[in-house]
């Protein structure tokens, strides 16, 4: 069912740190302002610039079959870690290696242009995925069928209902199965009617990938889908282990056993 790809997927992260320089405005006064809000995450780098340390000394090793959940409060560094794994933010310190094809579901409307028609958006995304003409035709068919666009496919996305836009975005993002799938939590939110269908498609996708890294607030999803969880706090790994244990530490109370599926 899975691929003919020979190299198994792998993620190796060693001592990874990511920090954001604060260039804009007056760094000195900004320093004071931000210091009072983001305690303990501010530092000055070697050239005395003010930086926000988004990730600090992350070590991580994932192999095929691993399903990792990232839990933690807002601003704990979950999304930054996903972006770093996707190669969007390059390491400021340490090293990061990802082997195998990768898809990051970070932005629901990635590259979607409201002025273009549904079909044009599909072609554009297909090109972004590096697909050839034939594969793009297949992509258009698959996405159109899932998103139930039919007559709207050749009309600008601008006139779509919001539900149609969500379906199109979701169908597009989940149409390609990579070896490594990175997913942000927004992906699990959506209107109820669409949710059931989306969930089936997403579970299918997740089952087919070799490595999954999921950032989520939803305890039941973490328990059902993941084999390992990491609690991120202030850019560091605070706890790492089986989902039940980590969730219990993070939430401060034992989690209920998920209903059998």
């Amino acid at each position, binding site marked *: 069912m899975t691929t003919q790809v020979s190299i198994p997927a792998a993620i190796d992260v060693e001592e990874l740190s990511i920090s954001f320089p604060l260039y804009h405005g007056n760094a000195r006064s900004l320093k004071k302002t931000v210091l009072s809000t983001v305690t303990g995450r501010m530092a000055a780098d070697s050239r005395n610039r003010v930086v926000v340390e988004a990730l600090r000394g992350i070590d991580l090793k994932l192999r095929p079959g691993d399903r990792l959940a990232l839990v933690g409060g807002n601003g704990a560094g979950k999304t930054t870690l996903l972006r770093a794994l996707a190669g*969007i*933010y*390059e*390491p400021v310190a340490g090293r990061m*290696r990802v082997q195998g094809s990768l898809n990051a579901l970070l932005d629901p409307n990635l590259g979607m242009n409201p002025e273009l028609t549904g079909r*044009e958006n599909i072609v554009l995304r297909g090109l972004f*995925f*590096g697909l050839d003409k034939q594969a793009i035709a297949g992509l258009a068919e698959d996405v159109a069928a899932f998103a139930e666009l039919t007559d709207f496919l050749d009309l600008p996305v601008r006139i779509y209902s919001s539900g149609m836009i969500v379906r199109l975005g979701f169908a597009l993002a989940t149409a390609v199965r990579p070896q490594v799938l990175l997913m942000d939590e927004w992906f699990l939110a959506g209107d109820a009617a669409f949710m059931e269908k989306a969930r089936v498609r997403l579970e299918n996708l997740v089952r087919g990938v070799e490595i999954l890294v999921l950032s989520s607030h939803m305890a039941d999803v973490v328990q059902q889908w993941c084999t390992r969880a990491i609690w991120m706090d202030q850019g560091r790994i605070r706890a790492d282990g089986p989902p039940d244990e980590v969730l219990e530490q993070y939430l401060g109370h034992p989690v209920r056993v998920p209903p059998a599926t």
Partner: protein
Amino acid sequence: MTASSHLQPSEHASLDLSANQRWSERHRSAWRDVREGLAQWPLVWTLAWLDIRLRYRGSLLGPFWLTLSTGAMVGAMGFLYAVLFRLELRDYIPFLALSLVLWNFLAALVGDSCVAFTSNEGMIRSVRMPFTLYAARIVVRNLVVLAHNAVVVLVVYLLLWSWPGATALLAIPGLVLWLVTALAVALLLGAICARLHDIPPIVASVMQMAFFISAVIWKPEQLAEREWVMVFNPFFCLLEVVRGPLIGVVPSALIAAAAAGYAVTLCGVAWVVFARVRGRIAFWL
């Protein structure tokens, strides 16, 4: 039911990123970026073409509005300046048409380059793509505009029957030089402007000044014996290696060498800057 038809991404990417790269590694990463960006030419072409289409969606003439407005500009300015400069109309109009069309390309390219990365913030922060892709998109988009505007020049040549002859072929090496330099400029300005937000207004005013001092609407011959100072104007030299042959003038060896020198310098600076900051651009957006 549809879920089983998942497609595979065509290439298997593998990433190996580390901090504190040595220069040799930086060069390799930058080179890989350029190579991979250019390898995506179908995407570059589609993005560039869509940019143009979107700008004129719903308009009757579409991109030919550009042609029309350039034509009107040439008509309006041509007669006035021919009188002001006491130049032969038949001689001056083709020169002006060509000059304006080429200069519009250069100016728009430089202007767009300033927002090469900042205007793609959403994309850059959600998917790893070669930065060269965004730079190439700007170059190709402006080439499409240039192709539309070229109609004005052809019409003027046709009306005044002033074809440049075989000398025009000499513009080809000039155009190749432009293409390479244009990509370098887009990468350089794109990166610098992402980091320093004061640069775009400076670039805009430099380009405006350059328009007046680079013999776009006046002829370099009007400087008479002081024409040689133009060799110190990079804009003029780069403009002249393409414009000269297209109005039947072979650029002097000095101008051609100067243009090549400026282009190589620009590409060199762009390369060093890009190799140095490539990994940081995403943090600046």
